[in-house]
Structures are given as structure tokens and as C-alpha cells.
């Protein structure tokens, strides 16, 4: 993940138009929260990118900032790689500072596709769980076309990434200087990965998307790399897989959500068919939830039979449960003098 400028230069530039938020960000951008993973973001701009012109010029110009990256959404005019930060909160503040600087929304903007980058490569099954939980937990349910997921690395010779929602890195620069809570609860100053990321194309994303993906990526990465949240991560995986099984969607996990080096011909289509199945199920679920009409005296009735709490509510409940568990348990760690 290459960005040919210093993060402090970006924060200084942002402070010219967002003095308080920019200064706070500059002072705290590496701060860790609850032992969750660091966060990287890429902004793919689908329109002419005019609103980012001043920011890009301030950082050294397009030839220096943008053209070092060959990777972008296939439809995008530019892809701005942001420096990684220590928490989802800092990532949200960074986007808000950029919104203030450019005077244009980044969140929930159909012309902006956000790419969320987490350190550590997940297995195929964990990548599937990441993609599915992101989709069902988002505040917006989206339809996709394959064009939404095409990047300039779709058929790259060295690093083909296919047409997927979840992408691996292309072995570029990697900033390890973020806190990692190891299995014993001690805060190590460096991530245990020399390289390697798992990215998610979240599209026109929201604050909630950033918080959710950071939470789920942390649980999954810790479960596969023996981090402090490994136990919770295993429980999360089991519960999420059970939810999918109850809704007869467990087969979605067997589909290649991320392109591995041993990918087969037709995997892109197999993945996209699975994604469409998930989208159709979620849209149908949305209609069913809307049909729950309030009756007199505040009583609610399920018009349709089936699960009293549909999959959308179940996933919200799951995310809420694990977010609270991490917050609660991390206090014990910090109070005991372990990680901080």
C-alpha cells in the first residue's frame, strides 16, 4: 500500500481547514483502541476527482501521489491511498477531516468507493465470513454488478485479484508500527506480519461500516494468528456460521470470496452468484421486516412465519454482543497492567 507522502504532511495540510480535528488526529493517529487492528483506507473516486485536486497538489501533485499506484477501481479517475491509523475512530476522524478540507462528502457518496484495509491475510473461509458479515451488518443493503468489483489488478500477471469483494494485498509497503495484543494480553509495539493485508471493497461506506469491518477483521485475524482476541474470534466464527446454517446460507462459505493463488477458471462467476444469493436473501428479509406491522397497544406481530428475528437482526445482535465483550474484557486487561 504505497502513499508517497508523510502522514504528518497530510495532517498538517488538513489542519489548515480543520484545525482542531486535524491536530487531534496528528497527535493520536497511532493510538490503539481495545486491542483492535489498525485501519487503512483507500478512496476510489468515480467522478473526475476535481474536489481532491487541492489536497493532492498540497501533498506533492498527482504525478507523485497518485501515479505510483497502479491499483484502483477500474472505473475510477483516481485512487487516493491514506496512511494507516491505529483505530476505526481515527479512520473516521481522518475521513471527516478530508470532508472538511474538500467541502464534499466522502461517507455515503455514490461517487466515492471506499476500500478498507486490515493487516494480515485471512484464510478463504475467514474472508468469506468477513465479506458476509460486512454486507449483512451494514446500514445500507446494496445490489452489485460485477463492474462494481473490477479493479486494475483483476487480471494482473503477478498479483491477479479477480472480481471479488475481498482482496489480498499486492506485497507493497506495509507499516508494522501499530500495537498488537498478543495471546497473553501484552501490547507488542509491532504487528506480527511482515507483510500481508486483507482488503474489503465497501463501496459508498459509512462510519458504521468502518467500525464493523474493523471489529470483524480483528476477531478473524486474531483467531488465525493467535492474538489476544483469538478465543472470542473462534466463538464469533462459530456463531456466525450457525446463523448462516439456520438460514440455509452455509454454502456461501464454500465459495471463493477472495482470489487465492490456486484459483480456478470460473471462480469469479461462482463468487458473484453467491454474492447475488446473499443480496437477494437480504433484500427479501428487508421486505419481511417491513411487513411486521405494529398492532394496537404496542403489540407486534410477525406477518410471515419463520425466524422471529431475521438474519439482519441476528447479525446486528452478534456485532453488538462482540463489541461489548471486547470493550468489557479490554478494561480488565488494561486494569491488570497488561496491554494499553
Amino acid at each position, binding site marked *: 500500500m504505497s502513499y508517497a507522502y508523510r502522514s504528518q504532511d497530510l495532517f498538517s495540510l488538513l489542519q489548515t481547514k480543520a484545525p482542531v480535528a486535524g491536530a487531534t488526529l496528528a497527535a493520536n493517529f497511532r493510538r490503539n483502541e481495545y486491542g483492535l487492528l489498525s485501519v487503512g483506507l483507500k478512496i476510489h473516486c468515480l467522478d473526475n476527482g476535481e474536489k481532491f485536486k487541492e489536497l493532492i497538489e498540497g501533498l506533492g501533485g498527482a504525478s507523485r501521489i497518485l501515479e505510483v499506484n497502479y491499483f484502483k477501481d477500474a472505473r475510477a479517475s483516481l485512487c487516493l491511498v491514506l496512511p494507516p491509523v491505529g483505530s476505526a475512530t481515527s479512520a473516521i476522524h481522518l475521513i471527516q477531516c478530508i470532508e472538511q478540507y474538500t467541502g464534499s462528502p466522502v461517507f455515503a457518496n455514490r461517487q466515492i468507493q471506499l476500500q478498507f484495509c486490515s493487516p494480515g491475510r485471512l484464510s478463504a473461509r475467514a474472508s468469506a465470513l468477513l465479506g458476509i458479515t460486512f454486507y449483512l451488518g451494514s*446500514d*445500507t443493503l*446494496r*445490489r452489485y454488478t460485477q463492474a462494481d468489483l473490477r479493479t486494475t489488478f483483476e487480471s494482473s500477471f503477478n498479483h491477479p485479484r479477480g472480481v471479488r469483494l475481498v482482496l489480498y494485498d499486492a506485497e507493497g509497503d506495509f507499516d508494522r508500527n501499530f500495537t498488537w495484543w498478543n495471546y497473553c494480553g501484552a501490547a507488542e509495539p509491532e504487528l506480527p506480519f511482515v507483510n500481508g493485508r486483507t482488503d474489503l471493497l465497501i463501496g459508498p461506506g459509512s462510519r458504521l461500516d468502518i467500525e464493523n469491518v474493523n471489529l470483524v477483521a480483528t476477531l478473524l485475524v486474531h483467531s488465525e494468528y493467535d492474538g489476544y482476541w483469538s478465543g472470542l474470534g473462534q466463538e464469533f466464527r462459530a456463531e456466525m456460521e450457525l446463523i448462516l446454517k439456520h438460514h440455509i446460507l452455509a454454502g456461501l462459505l464454500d465459495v471463493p470470496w477472495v482470489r487465492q493463488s490456486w484459483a480456478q477458471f470460473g471462480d469469479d462467476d461462482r463468487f458473484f452468484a453467491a454474492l447475488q444469493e446473499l443480496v437477494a436473501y437480504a433484500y427479501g428479509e*428487508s421486505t419481511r*421486516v417491513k411487513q411486521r406491522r405494529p398492532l394496537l397497544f404496542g403489540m407486534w406481530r410477525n406477518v410471515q412465519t419463520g425466524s422471529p428475528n431475521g438474519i*439482519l*437482526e441476528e447479525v446486528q445482535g452478534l456485532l453488538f454482543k462482540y463489541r461489548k465483550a471486547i470493550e468489557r474484557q479490554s478494561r480488565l486487561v488494561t486494569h491488570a497492567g497488561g496491554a494499553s
Partner: protein
Amino acid sequence: MIRAHQPGSQPIDVPETIPNPAIPRTVPTPEPRPSEPIKVPAPQHLLCFSSSCPARDEVR
């Protein structure tokens, strides 16, 4: 918005995005309006220039 339908069936509208109904919508709370200045009538004896007003001595 796209329309997907088979011949003879009602067209189905499939919007590109829909809000997730499992997430409660948060209505932004309106910023509190600055309260109207409260007009307090000035004490009568401050405005009173009558030498016979009994309150005049109290404020001196």
C-alpha cells in the same frame, strides 16, 4: 433502479440500495436554538426621577 420481471408477471422494482431495517434510524437532533432574550422590566425606582418617590433613597 432496475425492473426485473418475467412476461405476465408484475414488474418488480429492485432499488440499488435500501436501508438496513435492522438498524434503527437515528434522527439528527436539531441544534438548540438560541433562547430569546428575556426582557426584565427595570425597577421602577431607577427610572423614577420624582423627588417624592420613597424608593429613591434606597438605591442611593
